């Protein structure tokens, strides 16, 4: 090499043999032992993905990955994925000669800002559908619940990570010590948290805990707020992709509806009306098939058996209203 070369290889002076000290070798051996112990301990069927998305979304995503194609997406929060089992819905359509494969992309935890982020960044890039059913309840548009708002921010931010960061997490997740770090963190306090939610076929996620739970939240539904904006934006985004949209009211226990202040309910109706006025959106009134109070596990979710009946009734209703035939045959 000439003297004027900009290259010089003398800066790093580490003998090859000296790269790993005894302590470093022992550390690596110890980490490998931990990895082995985790692999031997963790029950089968879990997906290590390094707490990038919450576990339910990971499992939903894995289910979606296995499906060949999707005709209909159900989009919403847990009010969608807990209350509408797509398999029961598809069975009814099949009886009517409509071969259909639907997937419930409802995600538990966030409001519609998180729902929109998950659809745009996770589900849609994998599988596209011609039809989507938007399931929207007052609770999904409520911005008064600070915990839900914060959780949503975290969800949305995790979906919007740059590709290289997501790829790094996916790569590192091959090491289960990293891939199950969220579960490992919770383990000393709560025991092994293997997917408290049983994600069934096609994204359906029945609630695992069948005891009635109550909680109190204030309601603030803002037609011009960020949550409603995310819903409008999602509708525009899907419309640009030529998706036919069916808009329905998500379930809420009758007593919960009476608890919502009238002004907030009016705001909810304003938002629904704005959505329904969009070109590619067809609003379907599902109030006639709403389950009675006894079917509710809590204020927003119904039991698995009730959910199957509800999904079937929803399919019958769609057929009788003629909203599916054109696109899904």
């Amino acid at each position: 090499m000439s003297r004027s070369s900009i290259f010089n290889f003398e800066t790093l002076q580490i003998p090859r043999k000296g790269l790993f000290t005894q302590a470093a070798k022992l550390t690596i051996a110890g980490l490998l032992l931990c990895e082995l112990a985790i692999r031997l301990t963790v029950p089968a069927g879990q997906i290590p993905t390094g707490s990038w998305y919450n576990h339910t979304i990971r499992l939903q995503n894995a289910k979606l990955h296995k499906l060949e194609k999707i005709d209909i997406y159900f989009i919403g929060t847990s009010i969608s994925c807990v209350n509408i089992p797509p398999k029961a819905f598809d069975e009814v359509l099949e009886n009517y000669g409509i071969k259909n494969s639907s997937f419930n992309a409802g995600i538990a935890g966030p409001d519609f800002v998180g729902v929109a982020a998950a659809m745009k960044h996770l589900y849609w890039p994998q599988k596209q559908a011609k039809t989507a059913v938007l399931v929207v309840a007052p609770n999904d548009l409520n911005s008064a619940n600070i915990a839900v708002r914060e959780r949503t921010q975290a969800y949305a931010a995790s979906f919007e990570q740059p590709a290289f960061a997501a790829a790094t997490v996916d790569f590192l997740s091959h090491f289960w010590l990293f891939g199950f770090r969220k579960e490992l963190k919770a383990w000393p306090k709560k025991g092994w948290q293997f997917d408290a939610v049983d994600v069934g076929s096609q994204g359906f996620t029945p609630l695992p805990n069948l005891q009635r739970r109550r909680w109190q939240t204030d309601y603030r539904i803002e037609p011009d707020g960020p949550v409603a904006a995310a819903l409008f934006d999602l509708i525009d985004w899907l419309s640009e992709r030529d998706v036919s949209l069916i808009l329905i009211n998500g379930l809420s226990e009758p007593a919960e509806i009476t608890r919502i202040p009238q002004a907030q309910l009016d705001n909810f109706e304003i938002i629904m009306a704005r959505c329904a006025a969009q070109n590619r959106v067809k609003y379907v009134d599902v109030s006639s098939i709403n389950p009675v109070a006894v079917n509710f596990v809590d204020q927003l979710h119904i039991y698995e058996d009730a959910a199957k009946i509800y999904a079937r009734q929803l399919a019958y209703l769609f057929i009788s209203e003629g909203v599916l035939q054109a696109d899904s045959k």
Partner: protein
Amino acid sequence: MWFNSWEFLYFLPSVLLIYYILNRQAQNIWLLAASYFFYGWWDWRFLSLILASTLVDYFAGLFIHKTKEAKKRRRGLYASLFMNLGALGLFKYFNFFVDSFAALGDSFGLNFNTPAMRLLPPVGISFYTFQTLSYTIDIYRNKQKPVTNFINFALYVTYFPQLVAGPIERAKSLLPQIENKRIVSQEQFQAGILLILIGLFKKIAIADAAAPLVDEIFSNPQAQTSTILLKGLYLFSLQIYCDFSGYSSIARGVSKLIGIELSENFQTPYLSANITDFWRRWHISLSQWLRDYLYIPLGGNKFGTVKTYRNLLLTMLIGGLWHGANWTFVVWGGLHGLFLAAHKKFTEIRSVAESVKQKNKHPFLTILNVFITFHLVALAWIFFRSPDFATAWNYLSGLINWHGGFQLSYLKLPFFLIALLAPLEWLQSRSFDVLSVTRLPIPARAFYYMAMIIAIIILGGNDVPFIYFQF
């Protein structure tokens, strides 16, 4: 680009891989490009300010050195001061002073039409401003020769491992390392990796674990019992220390991989037995800067007791304001100034009473002194952490008017985090070297490394920015 971000995980190896195969001058150009990239990652517009500051100080340094006439030399220095302090004042303190002026007017019933100019302060502006100021001041004092190579000087100003949160390096320590050939030995490389590991451990396993609870408690102190307020205080004391010393450790580690030694910024400060000792061990590079460029020029302790106390107080008030444009920081600095003055007085009295000095050697008294010093520092942190005086006052009064009983179980998390940190601090306190962990027997060392790596993996993922980056 945070040190604990995915971006940095790719950035650092990419920089090092190319760096190791270049000759010295090409290395400096490469490091300068990497530093601008690192800084521009936040906002490329910030680059214009740092470039302007670099240019002014480079030429000011040359001018001051070349000029013999005292008046002209002073003008050169003023140009540098005007540029650096002007930018700092404009970007960081303009709104603060305008708002304070307006608030003062309001209290007298005067309504001023204050200009509305909301500028985003560039990341780390306080750090690099102090670093470049020390360069021109040292040249003015004939303690430093100016750099003739612009690339080397620009690298001194923007060197990425310490650009945004220090340590604030003096020209006499950093510049020779930039100008001379560098070699990264096996020991240096291993020490660098270990420092990065220790830094990440402190940041992710301790500081970030404390952060959510601290945020919650400080957001509404009125709603908390006194035990929870105490918990918040301990947690924040841990958070700020581990966050900042973790950053400094990573900065030193990264720099070691480059072959440049940065100064130690922390020496187990919470084990200090008095407040003067604390400031010798906490944010050492800032303390020394304030001593050399503020306290001593003000007169130091040469002009009598009253002026000494005044100088101490002034230095600490300005040191407080340096941290952020808020009166709460000023009060924090003022409190430390008072503590320092009180300790100075106490030391004077004690030196007369020799018997007391003898008693102080008892280990129990040392522990008591450490305990008292830590709690004084922790109390002052309330003003540092609170967004406003109302919050700080609510917090303090919640602690003073003790209510809600005392639940030891509430303090589990602080104690657990202290237990995580204790072995590191203990080892460091014995040799004043954070790398003293390497002197443990091999199995113990391996176990400690493994524990740190597992803690980083499992507890990571919160992506909490470093607190001092905002300064």
